[in-house]
C-alpha cells in the first residue's frame, strides 16, 4: 500500500486532479448564475430545487395566520398531485393542526375532506363549497370556513 514515494506522489496528484474535475465541471455551473440571482435569499428552502413547490409552500405559509393552530382543514387544488404535495407539506407546516386529505396518492377521499372545518384552496377561481365563508385571500389562493355539516 505504501509504495515508493514518487508513486505515492503521482497517485495523490491523480486524486487531486479527479477532485478538481468534479469541482469545475458538475459543481461550479450550479453557481454560475448571475450574482444577483445567487445573492437573492430564498423565500423557501425549495426555491431553486422545486419552483412549483416553493409557491405551494408560500401559499400554505400565508394561510397560517388565518387559522387556529389546531384547525381541522383540507387543501384543495386543481390536480391530485398538487393536492398530495400540499397535504404532505401541510403536515409539516401545521404541526398542531389536523390536515385532512382530499386526495391521497391520487385516490380521492372526499369523506375525509368533508370533515374539515376549513378549506385552503390553491389557485381555484371559485370556492369548492358555494356556502363556504371567505376568511381571507392570500397569494395563489384563499381560505374558507365551511358551514357545519348537518
Amino acid at each position, binding site marked *: *500500500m*505504501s*509504495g*515508493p514515494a514518487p*508513486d*505515492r*506522489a*503521482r*497517485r*495523490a*496528484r*491523480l*486524486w*487531486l486532479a*479527479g*477532485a*478538481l*474535475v*468534479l*469541482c469545475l*465541471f*458538475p*459543481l*461550479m455551473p*450550479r*453557481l454560475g448564475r448571475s450574482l444577483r440571482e*445567487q445573492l*437573492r435569499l*430564498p423565500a*423557501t*428552502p*425549495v*426555491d*431553486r*430545487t*422545486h419552483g412549483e*413547490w*416553493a409557491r405551494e*409552500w408560500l401559499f400554505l405559509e400565508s394561510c397560517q395566520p388565518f387559522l387556529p393552530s389546531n384547525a381541522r382543514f383540507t387543501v384543495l387544488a386543481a390536480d391530485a398531485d398538487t393536492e398530495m404535495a400540499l*397535504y*404532505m*407539506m401541510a*403536515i*409539516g407546516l401545521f*404541526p*398542531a393542526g389536523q390536515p*385532512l*386529505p382530499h386526495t*391521497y396518492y391520487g385516490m380521492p*377521499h372526499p369523506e*375525509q375532506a368533508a370533515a374539515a372545518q376549513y378549506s385552503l384552496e390553491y389557485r381555484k377561481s371559485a370556492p369548492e363549497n358555494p356556502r363556504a365563508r371567505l376568511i381571507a385571500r392570500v397569494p395563489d389562493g384563499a381560505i374558507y370556513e365551511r358551514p357545519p355539516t348537518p
Partner: protein
Amino acid sequence: MAPLAWLGTLILLPLLGAPLLARGAFGRFAPGARVVLAAGVGAALVSFAMTLFCLAGVPWGLAAIALAAALFAAALSALVRGKATAPAQERLGRTGALAVALSGVCVLVALAATDAGAATSVDLFYFWGPKAQQFAIARGVDTAFLAGPFHDYMHAYYPPLVASLDALATIAAGRFSWTCATLTFPLLLGALAVALPGVLRGAASRSAAAAVSALVIAAIAVIGVRANIAGNGDMPLLFFETLAMALLLRPDASDPAVQLLAGLLLAGAASAKVEGLAFALAAAALFLALRGGGLADSAKAAARLLIPTAVTLGAWFAFGATRRLFTAYSEYGPFFALHPDHWPSVATGIPLALAATGRALPYAVPLICLAAAGRPGRRAILPLGTAAALLAFVVFTYLHLATDPSQWISYSAARILSPLPMLFALAAVCARRLSREAA
C-alpha cells in the same frame, strides 16, 4: 436564536462521544479527526438512548438523553485498552495543501447551494421534517402520528437516528427549523473534510490522505447538490459509512479499539437509513473474511463490529413490535416477492439516473482514478465488495415494487448509490502502484 440553538445541539454531540474518544487508544487520530469521530459516536449513542427512552415509555428530556449517551460512551470506554500515538509529523506538501483547499471549496459550494435553497431534498418536507417535529412535540416517537391512516408516507419503520436527532435539536430550539435541517448537509460534509484525512493517515501518506479525501468530498458535494440531499438521511448515512470504511482500511484495523469505533459508526449508518444495514453487514462480513486469523479472534472482531448495530436496531424493532407499529423493513412486500419483469426498467433506469447527476461524473471520476491508480491490493476487496453488495441490494429493492419502478429509480438511485464514489476512492488508496509505473 432558535436556529443557533438547533444547530448548536448537533455541534455538542462530540462532547457526548468524548468519554470514549478521550481514551489513549484513540490518540492515533489527529485532534480534528478525533472530535468528529466523537461526534459520530455521540450521535449513534444519543439515537440509541432516545430509542431506549421510548421503549421504556420515558419522555425525552435533553439533559437525561445527554447523560444517558455520555454514560454509554463511558461504559464503552472500559472496553478500550492501551495507548496509541499519532503518526509522525509529515509535510503536507503542495499537493496536500491544494487538496485541503479544494475540500474547503467543495464544502463552501455545498453550503452556498444549500443556503440558496438549491440542494433541498423533497423528502425533508414529505417525512423527515414532519416526523422530527411531531416527535419533538410528543417528546418521543409519536406512534399515534405514525399509525395515522393517511401518514403511511412517514415510513414508520425507517430507522430512527435522523428523525430522533432532528427532534432533539427541535426540543432544544423550541421549534423545528427547516433551514437548519438542510444545513446538516454542508455541516456533515465539512466534518468529513476535517476527519477523513486524519483517519486515512494510517493507510496513506499525509498528502495522499488529503488528496483522496478531496476526491471523496468533491464527489459527495456534487451528488448532494445535484441530487438534492440537503435535509434528508443521505448525508448522515454517508458520514457514518465513510468514516467506518476508512477505519476498516487502516493497517491498525485489527486493533480492538479501532474495530469497536468502526462498529459504533456502522451502527450509526444502520440507524440512519435502511440501506445502512446492508452496508454495515457487507463491510463487516468482508472485513472478517479478509482478516483471517483464528475463530475466536474472528468471533470477537465480529462482536465489536456488529453488536452495536444489532443492539441499536434490536431496540428499534422491539419498540415497533411492542407498539404494534412494525416488525421488519417490509413496506415493499415479502422479502422474496420479486418482480423480475421489471428488470429492463431497473437495468436502464439506474444508469439514466446516474447520468442525470452531474453527467455521471461523480461516479465515473473516482472509478477512473481507481483504474488509473494501478492493480487493487487485496484490501481493496473491502470497499469494492461493499459497493457490489450495495448495488445488488439496491437492484433487489427496486425489483420488489409491484408497479413499474422507473419513476422511483429516477428520483432515488443517484442518492442511494451515493456511497459508491466514496468506496471507489477509498479502494484507490489500496492500489499497489500506478498503472503507468506497472507498465
